[in-house]
């Protein structure tokens, strides 16, 4: 399962941290929570993935959906500190080109 914690602000960007596993079981809840967290946000969004231990294509699809919405508002979405296994999936799917990935 996963946990989302939101609300930290960083240089005028809105930081959301995700912790745990996003797989076929947790994906629906993740999608709902994430869409809810970003619905009123009018800034760039940083998704802190330091504690995201697992994600699969379904989770990536959700992130792409969020990116689309965020971009529609003229903002961007940054993936922060993905673990090497998660980062690898961004690379394989070519999504490392769609998202800004930052290591801090």
């Amino acid at each position, binding site marked *: 399962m996963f946990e989302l914690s939101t609300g930290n602000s960083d240089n005028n960007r809105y930081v959301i941290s995700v912790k745990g*596993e996003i*797989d*076929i*079981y947790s994906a629906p809840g993740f999608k709902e929570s994430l869409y809810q967290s970003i619905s009123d946000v009018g800034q760039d969004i940083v998704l802190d993935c330091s504690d995201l231990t*697992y994600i*699969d*294509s*379904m989770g*990536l*699809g959700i992130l792409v959906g969020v990116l689309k919405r965020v971009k529609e508002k003229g903002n961007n979405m940054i993936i922060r500190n993905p673990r*090497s*296994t998660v980062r*690898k*999936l961004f690379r*394989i*799917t070519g999504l490392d080109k769609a998202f800004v990935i930052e290591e801090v």
Partner: protein
Amino acid sequence: MKQTDTVSLCIPMKAEYVSIARLTASGITSRAGFDIDTIEDIKVALSEVLGKIIEKKPLTDRINIDFVCQSDGIRININIPDNIPDLFDNEDDKFALAIIRSLMDEMEMIKQEHIITMVKKLGKAV
């Protein structure tokens, strides 16, 4: 570990059991001598296949996975229920397919046997 020890796992056709398959896969691949990163790769590939099968809502109750431990790696055979359409047919599925193909050394659907078979060799990190 001998040439061909097989561990079989049969789980209910439900999303909440995919993590059990991942956990069992970690145990088997770790005992088989894979490094942590490769174990993660195998878990992801297995989850993608199971996820795609479960998404198609087949009528079958359970899904069987054979982990065949070979001296040079592992082969994973997953039964595909025969009343479901093609596993990787729409746009999103292409991503799952790309992930599986990148992470595993071999991946093949053998339609007449109703299985997907995937192979990962020891000593080859992506």
